[in-house]
Structures are given as C-alpha cells and as structure tokens.
C-alpha cells in the first residue's frame, strides 16, 4: 500500500509528541520512586512536596493520556490505510492532530505552572485552572475527529466491497475506537457540564460523588483503549515476527467484539469503597468486569498457540521444546514477548482488584500502581515503543541504529518492572497508600521501607532501560534511510485457522454490538446514578491543593 508522505510525516509527529511526553513523564517517575523510598530527599533538585505532586500529575497525564492517545491515533491511521487499502481524509487528519496538540499544550501549561496539581483523576472539589479542563477536552475532541475519519473511510470501503468481511486488524481498530468513544462520553459530561462551569466560577456547587462516577465511567474502559492496540500488535504483527502464523482468526474477531460489549459498564469496580452506590450494583459491575477477563484469557490461549506454532515451524519439538526455538534475540520479538510476560502478572493482579470485597485490602494502596505499571506501564507502553521502531523502519526505511540495544532494553525493562511492582505490591498489602510523598510520611515502618527501596531499585532499572531506548531511537530518527519507498507493508500475520466462510454475519456488524453495549451501559449504570442522586449532595466548595481554605466562601 502506498502511504502518502504527509500521512507518514503526521504519524511521525504523533509518535514524536507521544515519546517526548513519555520522556518527561518517566523522568518524574524515577524521582518519585526515589523520593517515596526516602533515598533522595527533596531540596537537592527543586523537588519539594509541591513539586512531588506536580510531578505526579505530569507523570500520570503525560504517560497515560498524552503519550498513549497520540501514539494510538497515529498508529491506527497506518493500520487503517494499510488494511483497507483506502485513503483517509487529509484535512481531518490535520484537524485532529492540531486539536489534540493545542489541547495538550493548554493542559501542560496549567500543570507546569502548578495551576493544576490535581493528579490525573482531577477529583473535585480540588480545583485546577479552567484551561486544564479545556485542554483535556480538546485532546479528547481531537481524538473523536480521528474516529470520525476512520469510520467514514471504513463506510466507503464497505460500499466498494459489498459482502466482504472487514479485515481482522480493522476489527481491532474499531474495537479500540468504539471503546474510546463510549468511554469518553462519561468524562465529557463530567468536564463540560460540571467542572468547566464550576472552575470558571459560574456555578458554586459541585457533587464530588457524581463527578467520580462519571470519571470512572471513562477511567476503566480507558485501560482497554491502552490495551487493545497492543493486542492488535500481538495478534497481527507478533506471530509473523516470531516466524509463524496467528493461530485463529475467527477467535481473534470474537475477542475484539467481546471487548466492545463488556469494556464500558465496569467503572464502579473502581468505586467499591465509595459511598452512595448500593453494593448490589457494585457486585453486578464486578461480574461484568470479570466478563472482560474472558476475552483476555482467550487471547492468552490464541497467542500461546501462535507462539507454539512458530516455535514448531522453527524446529522445536516435544512438549516445551518449541519455547527454546523462538527468536528470543530478535529485537522485535523481545519487544513484544517482554510486555506479554508482564501482562500475565498484570492481568492476574487485575482480577484481584476487581474481586469485590478483596478490593478492600488493596484499594488506593501501593498495590495498585504495582498492578498498572505491569499493564499500561509495560504491556502497552513497551509494545508501543517496539511499534515505534517498526514504524520508523516501515514508513521511513530506517532500521534501528542498534538492534542489540533494542533487544537488551526490552528485557531490562521487564526485569525492572517486575522488581518495582513486587516492592509496590508488598507495601500495598501492608496498607501503605498510593500517590503519597511517603519519604515525608511519619507512619512508615522499617519493613515497609525495605520494600520501598526494592521498588526504587526496580524503578531505576526501568529508567535505565528507557534511557537506552531514547538514545537508540533518536539516533535512528536522525539516520539516513536505507530504502525510501512509499510502499508500506506492516506484514500482518496470516492465520493458521482462517475464517472460511462460516463466520456469523453478526460478528462483522459493529453497529449491532455498539447498540448492545449502549443498552448494557444504560441497564448497569441507571441504578448507580439513581443511588448517587438520592444519597449524595452538591457542596459549595473549591480548594487549591496548597491550602485548606475554601476558595468560594
């Protein structure tokens, strides 16, 4: 497929904004993990308590929102054009990019000037500068324009190819965007109808519990927005890198459809500890959360079978012999298998979090960042960095400067994150909170301190791995291209078990599944909002994180 130069360049800039944001974000990550352990006292490097929470806000917003959104939108443009062999609308591509960029700059200004030290969840009545909320809104609206562009292109393709099934990678693209769109409705309502008018001073009152409920409508499906593009890469790019095929294409289609259906009505499992929501509906959404684990278990089966197939093609024998023959030294394989291994532990700890009353032990403790640095912090982030190498090669003919370093930093990061998360989970189980400048806390015991130092060691290893990536990647960017061709082939894997004409038609009908998802959201959220409205109140208040006095009275 010929990809026009403009789209290759715009995709490059999506990657660039993402990776530069991530670079700032991970630097703050290192400072935080050291400050928590008390290894590094504030003061040496303009790093007081104010700066700790400002850095924490940057760490969350830049890594989890800016990096992911920019990277995913850019990557999915290429997947869309390559798999549909159709052109996107150029004007909308630019409009989306600049809307997202302006939004990011506005929010970044608010955070960098310490006017939005409200962390990435921005729970009211902690108040940020209005530009923080407006910037976040523009970032989301920009991504909606990308969705619109993709849907228009797909509908055109449908018209020109009647009766043909959507290509499998495109099914994944639709799953990503369907989940993202349904999820962002919650946060859009929160920000547009409540937070922006309140932060501008137009209304004095805000209902914090209602805001939380709307935030988590968005906050959990957000994790599938991060995860599904990584799944796309693991399903459709990884098997060929490993030297084999995707085990089952129909199963892959089924999995992505299940994500559309179950990703959104699960948000209250972040609110098991909240007032104002009956525990019956907390249990219902806990069950729906468990249902989203099913497609992930099916993914484990399908990907393991694909890896086994590749290992056997490469001459592996016996029950486990195929593991040895996989291309462990290939930088792309390393860059996919390391995040997949991290995700095994990430997924299991996620089941713990979703487990209703078991959550009481880990809610808001250090266990939680231990969990999500394995999932979004490694399974998604490292997969995206590996894809960045692949995109540089496919779009610009630039192979990594050093393949050895690329392989090394993947395994190094895996080792780092496993150590980091183990330490975090240990102190979390002891009841030590997350998002807290623990280096200054009067209540830390000696044993907990030990595990915080373990986390600091793991975090440092992760940072070194990222530094290796950063150097290797930017040397590659400034290299001369080896080949410069407009032909782009992402080399999607063939399937071993192909779809052979008996796929139920309904599995290729996205409107149907999105409509069903909407019904499920309404049924599972209506009683939750009913409870919130009858049991909680709006409060006249707005607070700066730096002072306990009410800004409104």
């Amino acid at each position, binding site marked *: 497929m010929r990809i026009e130069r403009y789209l290759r360049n715009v995709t490059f800039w999506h990657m660039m904004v993402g990776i530069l944001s991530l670079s700032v974000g991970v630097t703050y990550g290192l400072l935080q993990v050291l400050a928590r352990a008390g290894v590094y006292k504030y003061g040496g490097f303009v790093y007081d308590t104010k700066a700790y929470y400002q850095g924490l806000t940057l760490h969350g917003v830049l890594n989890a929102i800016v990096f992911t959104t920019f990277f995913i939108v850019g990557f999915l443009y290429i997947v869309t054009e390559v798999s549909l062999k159709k052109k996107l609308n150029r004007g909308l591509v630019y409009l989306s990019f600049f809307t997202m960029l302006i939004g990011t700059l506005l929010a970044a200004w608010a955070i960098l000037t310490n006017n939005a030290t409200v962390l990435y969840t921005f729970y009211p009545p902690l108040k940020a500068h209005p530009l923080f909320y407006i910037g976040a809104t523009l970032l989301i609206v920009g991504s909606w324009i990308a969705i619109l562009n993709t849907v228009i292109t797909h509908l055109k393709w449908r018209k020109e190819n009647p009766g043909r099934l959507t290509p499998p990678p495109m099914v994944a693209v639709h799953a990503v965007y369907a989940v993202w769109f349904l999820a962002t409705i919650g946060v859009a309502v929160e920000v547009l109808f409540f937070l922006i008018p309140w932060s501008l001073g137009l209304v004095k009152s805000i209902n*914090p*519990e209602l805001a*939380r409920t709307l935030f988590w409508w968005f906050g959990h499906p957000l994790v599938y927005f991060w995860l599904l593009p990584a799944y796309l890469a693991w399903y459709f790019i990884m098997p060929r890198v490993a030297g084999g095929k995707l085990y089952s294409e129909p199963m892959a289609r089924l999995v992505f459809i299940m994500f559309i259906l179950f990703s959104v009505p699960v948000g209250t499992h972040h609110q098991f500890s*909240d*007032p104002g929501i009956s*525990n019956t509906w907390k249990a219902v959404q806990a069950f729906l959360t468990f249902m989203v684990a099913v497609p992930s278990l099916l993914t484990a089966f399908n990907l393991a079978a694909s890896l086994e197939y590749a290992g056997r093609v490469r001459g592996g024998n016996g029950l486990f012999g195929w593991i040895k023959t996989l291309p462990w030294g290939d930088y792309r394989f390393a860059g996919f298998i390391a995040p997949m291994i991290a995700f095994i532990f990430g997924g299991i700890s996620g089941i713990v979090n979703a487990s*209703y009353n078991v959550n009481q032990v880990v809610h808001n403790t250090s266990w939680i960042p231990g969990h999500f640095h394995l999932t979004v912090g490694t399974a998604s982030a490292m997969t995206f960095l590996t894809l960045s190498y692949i995109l540089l090669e496919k779009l610009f003919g630039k192979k990594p400067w050093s393949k050895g370093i690329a392989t090394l930093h993947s395994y190094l990061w895996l080792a780092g994150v496993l150590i980091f998360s183990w330490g975090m989970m240990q102190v979390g189980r002891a009841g030590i909170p997350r998002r807290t400048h623990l280096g*200054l806390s009067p209540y830390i015991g000696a044993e907990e301190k030990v595990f915080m130092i373990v986390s600091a060691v793991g975090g440092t290893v992760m940072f070194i791995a990222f530094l290796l990536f950063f150097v290797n990647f930017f040397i590659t960017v400034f290299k001369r291209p080896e080949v410069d061709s407009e032909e782009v082939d992402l080399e999607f894997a063939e399937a071993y078990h192909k779809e052979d004409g008996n796929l139920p038609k309904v599995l290729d009908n996205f409107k149907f599944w999105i409509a069903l998802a909407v019904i499920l959201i309404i049924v599972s959220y209506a009683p939750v909002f009913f409870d919130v409205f009858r049991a909680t*109140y709006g409060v006249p208040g707005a*607070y700066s994180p730096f002072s306990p006095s009410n800004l409104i009275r």
Partner: protein
Amino acid sequence: MKWDFIDEYEAWAFKLSLGLIVVFFVAVVGLAALKGIDVPTCVTEFKPFEKGELVQLGPKEYQLKLLARMWSFEPREIVIPAGAKVTVYTTSLDVQHGFEIEGKAVNLMTIPGAVNKAEIVFKRPGEYRIVCNEFCGIGHQTMYGIIKVLPEEEYEKWREGSR
C-alpha cells in the same frame, strides 16, 4: 449465532475461560456473604455532619462519626476496649479523602456531600494505624490517625484516668 466458526480446541478454551471466571466470581461473592465481609453500600439515613466524635451506644457498642479534613482526621486518636463493635460514619469537610485501617478489610472513600459507613469489630488488642489514602493536597502524606484497642482492664483504667 452458530458456533461452528471456531474449532474444537477454541471452543474448549472458551468454555474453560468462562467457567473459570464464573467459579472465581461465585467464590468471591459467596465468601463475602458467608464471612460477612462486604463493601460499603448506599447510605441515605445519615446526613453529612461537621463535627467528628466517638459516641458510646451501649456496652462495647460505639458509633464513630469520623470527619476528614485537610489534613487530619477528627477524632485523631480513638481508644476502645477489645471486642468493641464500632459503626463508622464518615464524611469530609473539604476535599476527597480516604480512610483505611491497617490490617482490617476496611477501606472507605471519604467524600464531601456523602456519608460512608462500615461496621467493624476489634477483637485483637493493639494499635491500628489509619491513613488517608486519597490525594488531598500538599499535606496528604502526613494525614493519619490511630485506633488504640486496649484489653478490658486496661481500658477501664484508661477511662478512670481520662475522667
């Protein structure tokens, strides 16, 4: 929907995954009901309050109105006898806070404009650390309190002394 589009192994993977998840869920919710360890529910009978205090309702029965504010709990130190049953109601005077008791499955979000509730029995004497586990501003890391559970005789002595 006909299921012949996936092969035999895939169908087994599907059934096993679904079965595993259902077993997990039944185990978790079943044990929650059996052991009486539940998550907080919707409270409508209690309105938000502006003063924190411990009220004795009967022998070994207490009501704790716990108020969270930037950056302390009110009351900050709570003394009760071993075996006491405490019903906690909690709310916040300003921003969102968290209330977590070390070593107990009690973890409540403390939200302005809402009241959260838990029932806790303290059998084992000792000092239980309570911490705020939700970011509440620049003093968040110093926000904690303590629940002292004293053996009965010691508690009586303490009560005599504090009068």
